[in-house]
């Protein structure tokens, strides 16, 4: 296993980092999050044009760069650090990974090239209740009316759903009940998409209602639940990378402030109580980072215990990120509790990420049952 990033990977990281520092600064995040769409189309187009972000880990056969999940996770880490608000996680991570893992070759050839170029955006619709994020939890049924598959019901927490051109929907095929992957056009009149108002305005989610909506099945015959779950574990690993990036950004910010904020004639960062808490937090984040990085590499190495590693990473990142958010507010003192201070933007994301794609408790439970089995 490759434990440290290569020179090329570090250069890649540095490049995207510098871009986001400018184009996803906190003032730009704030203004973008006030728009109806919630993100800045120009910045996304630049990410597609200059860095070909959506192509990163799509195989070359489908027009991508054929890099690994390691590279996608590097992007996620930087997006999380900058709290980039755009359709990266919804389209490039969630939807593309499900297509890459679970669609037929023919469908991949049809769908991925469009996503890769950034011409089209997709979003994944899987969750139906809170706390249920895996294929086995899906109850929505797709019926076959002879000509087409038809979907009915509701999907929740569809990330970047409002801006998506098409939806990737996980549903059970009527009769046998096996999990299939379906594609639905967003333009379909039978579809209703409503924004779900969130604590984190930098990641938009929607509630999608299907009313006898026409769908194309893009997975092969038979149950593809395992493939969907593989994709979700990979997406979870990207989420963890994103969380680690966010946590690091918070810690850096707290430390910087502690050097320039003086009370009692000393920088507050010279007080040992703050030092020790910063050190504890650094340990938390380093541990979560190790887990997120190793999990991504393990996917690229074709390891078998990905779900274990994804759960370890999610459990570690969830606690590290939320601790970082709470500590950072505390380091800032009263000013950290204000709207004007940027900390709360990450504070919101920390909680939102903690419960997204399975809570830390759920991941620990899955993990411990796997290793006890």
């Amino acid at each position, binding site marked *: 296993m490759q434990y440290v990033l290569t020179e090329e990977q570090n250069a890649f990281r540095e490049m995207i980092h510098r871009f986001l520092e400018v184009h996803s600064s906190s003032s730009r995040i704030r203004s973008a999050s006030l728009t109806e769409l919630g993100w800045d189309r120009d910045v996304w187009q630049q990410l597609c044009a200059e860095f070909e972000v959506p192509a990163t880990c799509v195989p070359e056969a489908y027009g991508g760069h054929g890099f690994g999940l390691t590279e996608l996770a590097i992007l996620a880490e930087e997006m999380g650090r900058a709290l980039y608000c755009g359709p990266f996680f919804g389209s490039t991570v969630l939807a593309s990974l499900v297509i890459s893992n679970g669609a037929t070759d023919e469908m991949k050839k049809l769908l991925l090239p469009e996503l890769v170029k950034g011409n089209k955006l997709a979003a994944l619709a899987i969750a139906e209740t809170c706390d249920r994020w895996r294929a086995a939890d899906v109850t929505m049924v797709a019926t076959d009316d002879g000509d087409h598959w038809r979907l009915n019901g509701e999907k929740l927490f569809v990330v970047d759903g409002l801006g998506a051109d098409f939806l990737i929907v996980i549903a059970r095929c009527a009769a046998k009940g096996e999990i299939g992957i379906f594609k639905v056009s967003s333009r379909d009149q039978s579809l209703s998409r409503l924004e779900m*108002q969130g604590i984190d305005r930098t990641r938009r989610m929607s509630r999608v209602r299907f009313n006898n909506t026409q769908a194309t099945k893009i997975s092969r015959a038979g149950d593809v639940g395992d493939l969907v779950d593989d994709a979700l574990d990979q997406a979870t690993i990207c989420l963890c990378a994103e969380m680690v990036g966010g946590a690091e950004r918070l810690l850096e910010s707290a430390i910087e402030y502690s050097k*320039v904020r*003086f009370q009692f004639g000393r920088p507050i960062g010279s007080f040992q109580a703050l030092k020790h808490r910063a050190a504890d937090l650094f340990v938390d984040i380093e541990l979560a980072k190790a887990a997120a990085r190793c999990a991504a590499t393990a996917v690229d190495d074709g390891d078998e215990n990905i779900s274990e590693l994804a759960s370890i990473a999610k459990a570690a990142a969830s606690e590290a990120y939320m601790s970082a958010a*709470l500590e950072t507010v505390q380091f800032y003192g*009263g000013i950290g509790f204000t709207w004007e201070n940027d900390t709360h933007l990450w504070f919101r994301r920390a*909680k939102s990420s903690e419960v997204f794609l399975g809570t830390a408790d759920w991941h620990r439970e899955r993990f411990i049952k796997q290793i006890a089995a």
Partner: protein
Amino acid sequence: MTETVSLATEQQVRDDVRDWIALNWNVKLSLSEWRELLADSGWGAPSWPARWYGKGLPATMNSIVEEEFFNAQVVGVTRKGANRLAAQTILAHGTDAHKKRFLRPMLTGAETWCQLFSEPGSGSDLAGAMTRAVRDGDRYIVNGQKVWTSMAHISDWGILLARTDMDVPKHQGLSFFLIDMRQPGIEVRPLRQMNGHASFNEVFFDNAVVNENDRLEDEGDGWRVATTTLLNERRNFDVASKKHTGFDRQEQIYVEEAEEIAVALAPHSWYPQREGRIDLLLPRAIERGKFGDAALRQEIARLFVLQRCREMASQRARAAIEAGGTPGPEGSVGKLAGARVSRECARVHTIISGADAMLDGVDSELNGTVAEIFLSTPANSLAGGTDEIQKNILAERVLGMPKEPRNDVDRPFKGVPKNAL
């Protein structure tokens, strides 16, 4: 001995109050008419000197009198703003002229006060205030900024801690002023918090003016005077006063009082959420079908144990005070325990929510209440003295641990290292 005397007096006080109410209370008076009457009677501030709108009774009698008023559904003096703190400070350090001018409208509510101590650069370290008051003949010109000022937007007057001398050590270069808030040199801006509410203000001084006569005590005595205010703040904080939210009656005087209370409480509408809403935990866990989860049960039980212990500890503290002790640094125990409760409540509430913890507003549980609990988490660890300051107090004043070496108290304030922001 003391106890017996107090008990005798208590009944007497109750009788006196009842008699006075029977003779004077008139539901048909306007709020201001009634308050004038009340201020003059001395029953609006029983522990103040008889000469100054009080009855000269021990402070322990205040709650007795309040209780009588409450039981008789009689409207009391105003509770808005920092009026009570300002009054206590003026009583201790003001001239007769100050008392004559200011105390009465503080009781009637004709004037509202705010407390101008905290600054962006001096939160925990209040004595490091940088707002300058420079003498100009028989007045001072004030420049600088204060923050976390409740009620500044509706205040007529403020109690101001400002620096009049940079060349002496920090605690010696401060002076204490009563400043007219209704002047062009003062701008008040609401300060929005991360949970979207605005409970406080920022106050900017741009060549604001304060008369020499409106200084309490001498130049350089500001820290000593402020200590009185802070001690009273702590005392009011320690002994939780019954929250009076009006009598919900239709007569004009009650409606007027309710309006006054509503204005005073508006910025703090989210305070129940700040406490963590422990009351909602069990019902939510049960309703969401999660009470069967042993791990969650342990989390909730831990929290209830913490909360119940905190209640018992504060009852013990209150009993100790009543038995003759004074409210000391032990109040920090309750403050820290309360901050723990808030933090843990917020955490457990979002565990119960699962992915719904991502939601806010209409899509969310209890119409945003859980989101508000979460987004208010840090408040109790910051407001009214940060957890860090409370821990320093406990370690140094209660446990007697040695102080840190300091470099900011024994040299001219101008030479003390300051914020590098």
